[in-house]
C-alpha cells in the first residue's frame, strides 16, 4: 500500500535559527523536490516553506523514506545532523493525513486560525504540480485538505477576531470609521509596535500616515520606512486636529497628550471622532482624554485583553474544527484504502480468467463433436462459474478495505487473498505507476527521528 508521509520541522519542533536554514525559496522548489524524490524513493513529493514551517509531504511504499528525505534535505542545506536532534518529525499514514489537514486549516499555526497558511499551502501545491512531482495521492489529499480548511473557516469561528495588537487596532478603527480609505494615521513616537500598527493600518487602506517624533532623524527614518511623512514635535497639536487614528509609542515617562491638549483639538475637529491607540508603557495619553466626547482611547492592556479573548475563543473553536477535520481525514483514508485493493482485484480476476480459459480449452479438446453454439455455452459456463465464485470474496474485500464494515481488516484480508492465490498484494507495496526511479539509495540518517507509527 502507498504510504502518505509528512515530515520536516515547524515552530513547535524547531527554533527559528534552524527553520530559516531549511527555508526553500520559490525558485528552489524544482531542484530540491526532484532530488529528494529521487534520493529518498518518494513516489510523490511537495514542500511547504513558510516562516513557521518547512515541511515535506510525500508518498512512498512505507515510512522508511521519511528520515532519508530529511537527511537528504539537511545535506542539501549543509546542516550538521547533530543540530537536528529532536527538531524534526516524521508522520505517516493517518497521522500524516491528519497533520496536513490540520496545517491547511491553520490548526497547527502559531496563531490558530491565521489565514495565510492556506494560501501558502495552495501555492506550494501548485508549484509541485507544475514541477510534475504530484501524483494521485497528494493531489487527492491536498485537494481535500484545502476544501476541508475552507469548510472549517466557514463553519467555525476559528478565523474570527483579531489575534495581534496591530490587527486589533485596525479592527477597532474599522468599527469606528468603517472603510479606512481616506483616513489619516498619526504615529507619535517611533517605536516598533507603532510601526507595525502603521503598516497594518496602511494595508487596510489608510491614505496618509504622519510621523511625529522628538528625534527628527528617527522620525524621518520611520516615515520613509512606512511610506509616511515626518512632522516636527511642535506640530503635534496641528496633526492631532487632522488625524483620525493616533498611535502613540514614545519613551516618555509622562503623558504627552492630556486633557488640555485635546480640548482645543476636539473643538477644531468639529466633533469628528478620534481614535487613540496608546501602546506606550508608561502611557502617552492621559486616561482623562478618554472621557472627552468623540474620543476613543485604548491602551496596550485593553488591546492585549481583546487579543487574549480572541485567542481563547479561537482555541475553543479549534476543537470544533478538529471534529470537522476528523470526518474529512476519514474520508481520505477510506479512499486510500479502497484504491489500494483495486490492483489486487484486477489480478484476481485475471488469474480466474486464465484458469477458466485453460480449463475450457482442455475440455473442448475432449469434446470435438460440439458445434459452435454448444462450444459457446461451455465457454459461457466457465466464465459464469468464475464470476460467481469470485463475486462474494471481491465484494467483501472491497468493503473491508473501505473500512465500512467491522473486522476483518482489509489489509490482512488482502494479504491472505494474495497468499492463497499466489498473487502480489497491491496493499503491501507501491504500484509501479506511482513510483519513479529510486536508483540512488540514500544514506541512512543517524540523527533523524524514527517514523511515528500511525
Amino acid at each position, binding site marked *: 500500500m502507498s504510504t502518505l508521509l509528512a515530515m520536516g520541522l515547524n515552530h513547535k519542533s524547531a527554533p527559528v535559527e534552524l527553520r530559516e536554514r531549511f527555508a526553500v525559496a520559490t525558485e528552489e522548489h524544482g531542484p530540491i523536490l526532484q532530488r529528494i524524490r529521487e534520493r529518498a524513493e518518494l513516489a510523490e513529493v511537495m514542500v511547504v516553506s513558510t516562516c513557521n514551517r518547512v515541511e515535506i509531504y510525500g508518498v512512498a511504499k512505507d515510512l522508511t523514506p521519511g528520515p532519508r528525505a530529511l537527511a537528504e534535505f539537511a545535506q542539501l542545506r549543509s546542516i550538521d545532523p547533530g543540530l537536528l536532534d529532536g527538531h524534526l518529525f516524521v508522520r505517516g499514514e493517518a497521522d500524516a493525513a491528519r497533520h496536513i489537514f490540520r496545517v491547511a486549516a491553520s490548526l497547527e499555526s502559531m496563531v490558530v486560525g491565521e489565514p495565510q497558511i492556506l494560501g501558502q499551502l495552495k501555492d506550494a501545491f501548485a508549484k509541485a504540480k507544475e514541477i510534475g512531482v504530484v501524483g494521485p495521492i497528494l493531489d487527492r489529499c491536498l485537494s481535500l485538505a484545502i476544501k476541508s480548511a475552507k469548510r472549517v473557516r466557514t463553519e467555525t469561528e476559528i478565523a474570527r*477576531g483579531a489575534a495581534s495588537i496591530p490587527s486589533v487596532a485596525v479592527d477597532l478603527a474599522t468599527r469606528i*470609521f*468603517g472603510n479606512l480609505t481616506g483616513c489619516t494615521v498619526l504615529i507619535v513616537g517611533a517605536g516598533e509596535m507603532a510601526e507595525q500598527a502603521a503598516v497594518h493600518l496602511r494595508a487596510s487602506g489608510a491614505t496618509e500616515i504622519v510621523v511625529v517624533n522628538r528625534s527628527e532623524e528617527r522620525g524621518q527614518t520611520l516615515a520613509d520606512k512606512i511610506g509616511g511623512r515626518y512632522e516636527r514635535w511642535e506640530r503635534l497639536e496641528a496633526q492631532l486636529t487632522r488625524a483620525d487614528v493616533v498611535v502613540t509609542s514614545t519613551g516618555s515617562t509622562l503623558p504627552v497628550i492630556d486633557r488640555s491638549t485635546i480640548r482645543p483639538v476636539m473643538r477644531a475637529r468639529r*466633533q*469628528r*471622532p478620534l481614535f487613540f491607540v496608546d501602546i506606550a508603557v508608561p502611557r502617552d495619553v492621559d486616561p482623562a482624554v*478618554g472621557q472627552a*466626547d468623540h474620543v476613543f482611547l*485604548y491602551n496596550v492592556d485593553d488591546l492585549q485583553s481583546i487579543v487574549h*479573548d480572541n485567542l481563547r475563543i479561537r482555541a475553543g473553536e479549534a476543537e470544533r474544527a478538529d471534529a470537522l477535520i476528523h470526518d474529512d481525514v476519514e474520508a481520505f483514508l477510506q479512499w486510500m484504502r479502497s484504491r489500494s485493493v483495486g490492483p489486487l482485484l484486477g489480478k484476481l480476476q485475471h488469474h480466474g480468467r486464465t484458469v477458466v480459459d485453460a480449463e475450457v480449452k482442455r475440455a473442448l479438446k475432449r469434446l470435438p463433436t460440439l458445434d459452435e453454439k454448444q462450444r459457446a455455452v461451455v465457454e459461457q459456463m466457465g466464465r459464469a462459474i468464475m464470476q460467481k465464485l469470485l463475486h462474494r470474496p471481491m465484494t467483501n474485500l472491497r468493503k473491508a478495505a473501505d473500512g465500512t464494515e467491522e473486522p476483518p481488516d482489509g489489509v490482512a484480508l488482502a494479504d491472505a487473498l494474495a497468499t492463497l492465490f499466489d498473487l502480489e498484494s497491491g496493499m503491501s507495496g507501491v504500484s509501479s505507476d506511482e513510483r519513479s526511479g529510486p536508483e540512488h539509495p540514500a544514506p541512512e540518517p543517524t540523527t533523524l527521528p524514527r517514523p511515528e507509527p500511525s
Partner: protein
Amino acid sequence: MMLGLFIASALLYGAASVAYGSERSHDREDGREGIERFGRLFLAFGAALHFLAIGVQCVQGDHPLKNIFLATSFATWAAVLGYLPLSRRLSALGSVMAPIGLVGLVLGVVFSRVGGSGVPGATALASAHVTLAAIGFAGFTLAAGVAGLYLVVERRLRNKVFRRGSPGMSLTGLDRLQHLLVLLMTPVFTLAIVTGVLWILERGGPEHLGGRLFEIIVGAIAWAASAGLLVARAVWGTRGRRSAILTLVSFAAMVLIVISYGVGA
C-alpha cells in the same frame, strides 16, 4: 382572509422579534445557531403579509389615510420595508424594527374600526397631512432605530466591550445614515405640520387650534429637535451622541402625538 393574514404576519413579526432578540442576547462565542439566523427572513415575510393585509383593508375601504391606526400601520410597514435593505449591516436594529412592525400591524388591524369610519371632515388637505405624517413617522422610526444603535455601539466602544464577529456598520456610518434620514424626513415632517395646521384652520378656524394644543406643542418640540439637529450639524458640526439623542427626542415626541391621536380617536 384578513384574519389569516393578520395571524400569519403577527406570528412572523413575533418570530423575527425573538430571532433578532436571541441574536442580540447571544454571546457570539457560542456561534450563531438556531432561530436567530432566520430573523431577516421572518421579518421580510412578515412585512410582505403586512402589506397584503393593508391591501385587503384598502379593498374593504379602510385605506391608510382613514384613521390614525391605519396610518400608523402603514408607517410602521414602511419603516420595516426601509430597514430590510439595511438589515445585513444593521442586524442589531432588527430587534427594534420587528416589534415596531408587530405593533403597527396590531394597531392597523385590531383597532382600525375603533378609529371611526374616516378622518372627520376629510379633505385633500387632511389626506395630504396624514400621508406626510405617516411617511415622516416611518422615516423617523428608522432614524431613531439607527440613533439607538449608534448609542449602544458608541457606549460599547467607549467601555471597551468588544464583541467578536462582523461589526456591521461602523460608528461613523451609523451617524451618517441617521443624519441622512433626518435630513430627508424633516422637510416631510415640516410639511405634515403645515398641512395639519391648515387642515385645522380649514375645519373651524384659529379657535380650533386650542383643541389640538398638546399635539401642536409636542409637534413643535419634535420639529425643533430635528431642525435643530440639522442646523447644529451644519454650523458646529454636531454629530454622534448629541445628534442621536436629538433624533430620539424628535421620535419620542412623534410617538406622543400618535398616542394622543389614538386616545382622541
